[in-house]
Structures are given as C-alpha cells and as structure tokens.
C-alpha cells in the first residue's frame, strides 16, 4: 500500500474529532440528500473495513475502523432531515466544538422542546387540556357560549396560559357580534 495513503489515514484518524459531519463526508453544508448518499458511497469505497480485512497491520485496521464508524455516524445524522437541521444549528452556534457529534442530550432537548410546544398549544394540565379540547369542539360547532364556558374553565386550571386567553378574547368578540342589538334578555 502506498505510503501516501497511510499518512492520510493517520492524519484523518488523528483529527477526526475536530471535524464536523460535513467534514467527515467531505461535503459542503449545502449538500442535497443525493449528494450526501453519493459522498457516503464514495467514503465507503475508501474506508470500508472489509477493504482492509486482509491487511496485516492491526494498527491500520484500527484506524480505518475509527474513521469508518464516524463516516456511518455522519451519514446517519445527515440523511435524517430533522436531525440534520438540528445539527447544522448546533455547529453554527457558540458551542460548536462541543457539538461536533450529535448526542443524546441534544435529542432529549428536541423531545423536551416538542413537548413544551404541544403543551403550550393544548395546555399544561390534564384538566386545562380537557376543557380546551371541549372548547375547540364547541367552536367547531359554532356554539360560542359553550366555547366561552369551556375556556373559562380551562383558565381556572391554567390562569397564565396565553393561548387560552387569546381564544377567549376571540370568542367573546364573536358573541358580542351575534348578540342582538338592543338588549332584551328574558329573565
């Protein structure tokens, strides 16, 4: 095997911890999914451990293994649109050096954020969610007073929920509109 290649492998294995996934796959950050796959195949042809299985040097095989595991890791993240988006944001941020490898913590954060979003959308407490869901049903049916009652109940459990307040204001303005002019309510 030519000496040039051995030097390259050693250098790459030594510096791989400083590369981001685009660097590992030798790609620009703008790469399309097709380009990512092509790059993965290209790097696989070069660094697939099977290619070096019959090489005597255990040291070389170990270096190749280290590189190829990272190639697989890079491909796994970059082929997944959601993870890729998150990863690009991570390595573009101030913590770049700590986030060159996509980690559990990041994934847990993603889940946490999604959960928070959903909660904000539908309420944080079981009862808040229940009444808010009921309000939405009433709204769909066009029963404004029913919706107003349900939203007030929801706000009893979550007085600070901005979404609930917003909806309530909208509903109240609707009831205001439909209420006949000249107030003759039957007692």
């Amino acid at each position, binding site marked *: *095997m*030519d000496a040039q290649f051995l030097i390259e492998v050693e250098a790459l294995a030594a510096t791989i911890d400083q590369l981001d996934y685009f660097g590992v796959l030798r790609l620009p950050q703008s790469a399309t999914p097709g380009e990512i796959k092509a790059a993965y*195949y290209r790097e*696989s*042809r070069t660094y*697939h*451990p*099977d*290619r*070096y*299985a*019959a*090489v005597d040097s255990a040291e070389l095989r170990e270096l190749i*293994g280290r590189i*190829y*595991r990272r190639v*697989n*890791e890079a*491909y*796994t993240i970059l082929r997944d649109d959601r993870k890729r988006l998150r990863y690009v944001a991570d390595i573009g941020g101030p913590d770049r050096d700590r986030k060159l*490898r996509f*980690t*559990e913590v990041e994934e847990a954060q993603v889940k946490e954020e999604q959960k928070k979003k959903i909660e904000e959308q539908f309420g944080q407490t079981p009862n808040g969610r229940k009444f808010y869901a009921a309000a939405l049903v009433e709204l769909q049916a066009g029963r404004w007073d029913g919706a107003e009652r349900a939203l007030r109940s929801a706000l009893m459990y979550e007085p600070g929920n901005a979404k609930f307040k917003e909806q309530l204001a909208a509903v109240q303005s609707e009831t205001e509109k439909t209420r006949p002019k000249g107030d003759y309510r039957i007692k």
Partner: protein
Amino acid sequence: MSDDIAVGIDLGTSYSCVAVVPADGNPPTVLPNEWGERTHASVVSFLEDGTVLVGNDAKKNIITNAENTVYSAKRLIGRFFFSDEVKKAQAVMPYQIVEGANNSVRVGVKDKVFAVPEISALVLKEMKAIAETALGREVHKAVVTCPAYFNDNQRQATKDAGRIAGLEVLRIINEPTAAALAYGFGRDISQKICVYDLGGGTFDVSILEIGKDVFEVLSTAGDTYLGGDDFDDRIMTWLADDFLARHGLDLRQNKFCLQMLKEAGERAKIEVGRDGVADIKVPGICQSPEGEVLDMVQRLTGDQFNRMVMDLVQRTFKVCDEALQSARLTAGDVDAVILVGGPTRLPIIRNSVRHYFQREPMTGVDPDEVVALGASIQARALLSTQAAEQGQASYLLDVTPLTLRVGTVGGFTEAIIDKNTPIPIEKSKTFTTSRDGQDRVRIRVYQGESNRSEGCETLGEFEFSGFRIGYRGEVQIQVTFEIDSNGIVNVSATDLETGQKTSTTISLSSGLTENDLQKAMDDNAAVELSRGPRAA
C-alpha cells in the same frame, strides 16, 4: 497467504449449506458431500458407539433415536431459558432441554450436557468436513450467516459456535444481504431490491439499494418466530385433530407419534406445493388401547392448505410493510424481489409476493443455496490482499436490526442506537455516580423496540469499576457502545476526567465464558463424525 481459503456457510434452522469461490476466479459453487447432497439437515444425532451423525441421515434418527437427536437448535441459540421460544421447544422437542448457568439453555443427551452453540458447532464441523473432502485440503476460515433479525446474543452464540468448531469466523453476515450479494446486481444504475427470506424457523425482509459496487441495506425487519416449521405445524394440527375425531386418540400425546406426524406434515407441505395436492399415508402411526394398529390416511388439497396458512403468509407482509416504511418506500418503488429459503417454493408464497409487489419475483438462484453462495463471495472478499490497493468488487453496507437501549429507572429504557443504523457504529453516553463514594456503576443493555425493559431482550449487565472515587454526580463515566460489522455489541467505559479505561465485568449474559469456550473446543475436536455406510 495467497493460497488461503475461506468458505461460506449458511447455518440454517432446518438445513445448512456450504459454498466456496474457487481460487481460479470461477463463480461461487456449492460444495456437495460424498453422496452428492448439496444441503444438509441441521440435525445432530448422538450414536450408541459414541460417534456423532450430522445431516440428512441424522434426520432419519429423529424418529428412531429421538432422545439423542437434536434438531432446530437454531431456534434455541442465544436465548434465555425463561424465554417463550424455549418453553415452546421444551413442549415439542423429544430431546432434553435443561437450564444452565446464568439462565442459559442446555441440551441433555445421554449423560452429557451441551450448550446450544456446541450443538451448532457440530453442524459446522460437518460443513467444514464436507468442504475439506470436496476441496481436498484443510479449511480454517469461514463466513457464517445468520438471520438479519438476530439480536446480539444470537449473533455472539453463532460466532462462538464457529470458534468451537475450529473455524475462524471472518464475519457473521445477514442471510438476506448474502442472498443479494449472490444475485450480484452491480450495474451502473441504482436499483432498489427486496429480499424476502422465509427459512425453516425465521423470516427476514431486507430492502437494499444497490449501485455499481455498493450494497446498502436501507432497512431490515423480521420475525424470529416465523418459518416453514410453522406451516408444518398447521398441517400437523389438522391431521392430529382429524385423527382425534376419527379414533379418539391424540397423536400429540406421544413423542414418537408426534415425530411421525411432524415428518408427515413436512412431506405434505412439500408435496402440496409441488403437485397441488398431497396424499398423506402413515401406516402404523399408533396403536389403539385395544391393540389395533392404526394408519393415518389423508388427502390435503392446495385450497385447504392455503386456508390453513393464510394468516402466516399475511404476517410476512406485515413485516414487509414495516421494512418498506423504515426505508420510506412503497411496494411499487421496489425494482426487484429475491426469494430465499425453501418455503418460498410454495405457490401460495410466490403468488402472494407477486401480488404484493406487483412484479414477478426473481428465482434464478436456488433458494436453498443462495445464502451460502453469497457468504462464500464475502469470505473470498475478506481474504483478498489486493483489495486494500485495488478496492473490493462490492461493499456491504449493512444495518443493525434492533434498537440498542440502556435501562433507566422504573423499568424504562432509553434508546442509544436506533434500528436500521448502518454498522459499524459507536455512540457514547455519559453516566454519573448517584451516591457519594460510589465505586461502581452498573448498566443494563437491551435490544428491542419497547421503551419498557420487559418488552426488550436483555443483552447483559455491565459493571464498571476502577474509576476515581468522589462525591455523587462528580465522577463522570463515558460509556461507549459499539456495534461491529458482525452486528455484535461491545461496551467499554472511561473516566471522563482522567481518561482512564475502567474495568468491565459482564453478568447476566447468556453467552459462554472463555473457559467454557476452551473446553467446548476441546470436546468438539474430540468428537468423531460418523462416516459409516449409508442406508439406502
């Protein structure tokens, strides 16, 4: 060594096969035994004279020497004694299945007790002997295949079996992947293919994208409890119920009758698949309490058979759905379908596959031999000394079939490496101590798709020690989970601050210890394979 040789071995539930790529560059070829048989029953029969008979002759002994004849060992390999599969096997197998250390499974034959890999090793020893006879030289290296859906325990046990048989297992490769390799697509255009692999005891589906020299597995799914045996079971149940109604005798109560019934079931399945109808005749299957010798005579039509197994066939397509979904494809995106495994000869399977994928499945390579042929191609590639310079003819980019998890509090698990992630791969996770002065950290590792630990398979419990002692939360241990090219999991840990590797002990593992292995290797080497005169 340029004259080095390595064979490919398909170690099947029911049948095994060995193949080689000749050194002269000819295409891969199956190595037959002295009698010209190309596939060999994965049956091990322990004879009176102390020798061991393996293969199609041993299969005949399932009835005549039932207690000392072990078959379908692959259904037990790498399983815990308490698993459902083992309980089920205990109920139907005429040989003894007993509990060994660490919840492992042992097979009792005469006065000896064998670990399951030791039984599989005897099958491998026979494959090795067949190859050596056919090639006229010694064989020490092999690629052995396993179902794509095998977990770490099962893969490790398969690898152990190879070692016990005196083979250096260059690689464990997945059966569907091997089959794809044997078909050798490799044109410039990229194609998406589906491998539908229905074996004796397991079912696998793999979806691959194949370019010029790259075989990328996009997804794999499977069922390690579904195979041709289950089709036989349906026929057996029907025959037994019918016999019970006619004669008031339950053939399943007697292990001898059960074996005759099983054999009749398998024969009927093959016949009905080939001829559209099967005439079943088992003279003298049992004796009535009055001493009358009873025969079993029945006729199984194709329609009857299809109705019996329809739900099993449908189960295979649920697995296909799952694999396609993971690969983000639909059945219509698949450019070719490969059929693997003897049961795929059945018309009901062929027709259903054709209907599901809306295309004619490929059957150019014998479904019983295709896996061994593929394994031999990979074996040859792994020995190639020119590959480093010139590249391989093809690269297998395979995936892990199951999500790797660690146990968390309250019986929950957390995913570490998702299923269908390309291998080899590694991932690290940092654990901290939870008590002041804690000197060891213990983690449980699982494989499976449930976030509850009881819904997953336990791989083992790892205990790390030898790190710095400190206040709780102060000591950080980075645990690295690696899945190697065989799909086998390795776990190691380092103290993050000092960079010191900690020592690791594994408990609760179904595997064999190094000592067990050494002893098993010696025992295996001492076994003499029966090569006696052959009954007609």
